């Protein structure tokens, strides 16, 4: 086992790279004139990020596409329906979890 401080330089450069990705446009704001397509794309960022982060969690089971018998997919679909109808975060989350646990119990 290496001593903690031997890892410190690697942690620092990895942390710095991560920080720079997160700081990049925040730091540049107001110092450059972004092209119009870039400005148009910005309001879509939360949508594409949430969608890209969520879809594989629902559709992939151990890295493979699985539709039939996929409890997370069914529960996720119910959660989408609940969100569409009531737009209440807590209801969406609890409803999705209820379906998920129920399907696991039955499966």
């Amino acid at each position, binding site marked *: 086992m290496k001593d903690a401080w031997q890892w410190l330089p690697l942690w620092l450069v990895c942390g710095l790279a991560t920080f720079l990705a997160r700081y*990049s446009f925040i730091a540049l704001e107001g110092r450059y004139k972004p092209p119009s397509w870039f400005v148009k794309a910005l309001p879509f960022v939360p949508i594409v990020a949430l969608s890209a982060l969520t879809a594989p969690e629902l559709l992939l089971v151990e890295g493979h596409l699985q539709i039939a018998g996929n409890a997370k997919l069914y529960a996720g679909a119910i959660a989408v329906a609940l969100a569409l109808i009531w737009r209440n975060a807590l209801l969406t989350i609890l409803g999705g979890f209820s379906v998920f646990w129920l399907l696991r119990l039955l499966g």
Partner: protein
Amino acid sequence: MTPVAAFFVGVRALLPMLVGVTPFGMLYGAVALQAGLSPLAAMLMSSLVFAGSAQFVMAQLIATSAPALLVFGAATLINLRHALYSASVAPALKHLAPPWKALLAYLLTDEAFAAAASHLLAEPRSPHAHWILFGAGAALWLCWQLATLAGILIGPALPEDLGLDFALPLTFISILVPLIDDRARLAAALTAAALAVALAWLPYNAGLVIAMLGGLMVGVLGGVPRGGSAR
């Protein structure tokens, strides 16, 4: 809205995600020890890098004695998507002093961005929008450090078959669905979802970045969103 009220709006938006983040953080703590890291090194990674999925890959690479350059390259690639979040929140943080900007950038994770995004989209010029992001970021930070510590001390103690990690995608759904209110947004979301699933086999989250960029392209070509030019 007072700064304190805004702070707790952010905390509240993030709260359900902690159900999923806690077992994930505990698992990281346990995996880091198995990889041969000392408890202090594992804790330091959580506070210095502060990026869930990257920390798992770093620990796994270290377990296989991968060279430091590969660990660095992987962490950088995995966290590249955060630059998109940076661009998205930048207009709302424009008026802040550099230390504030740096602090919020350090806290700008998937979860904090998700929790604050709908508020920032709805009121990009609200003077306290940054307090919402700060509340969400601080709540996640504290939870991640404590969960790492718990994982180091007691291992991944929460039973995996409870499926608590499912809280994260469910919370994301509850935030995402109300944001989709026209065809361009729907097309962007579906494109990003399809690409993320199809490209999930690519290493180091490269598929996620391509999926997000593809979704953005479809959204931009699909129409001008409301408030899109308000900057």
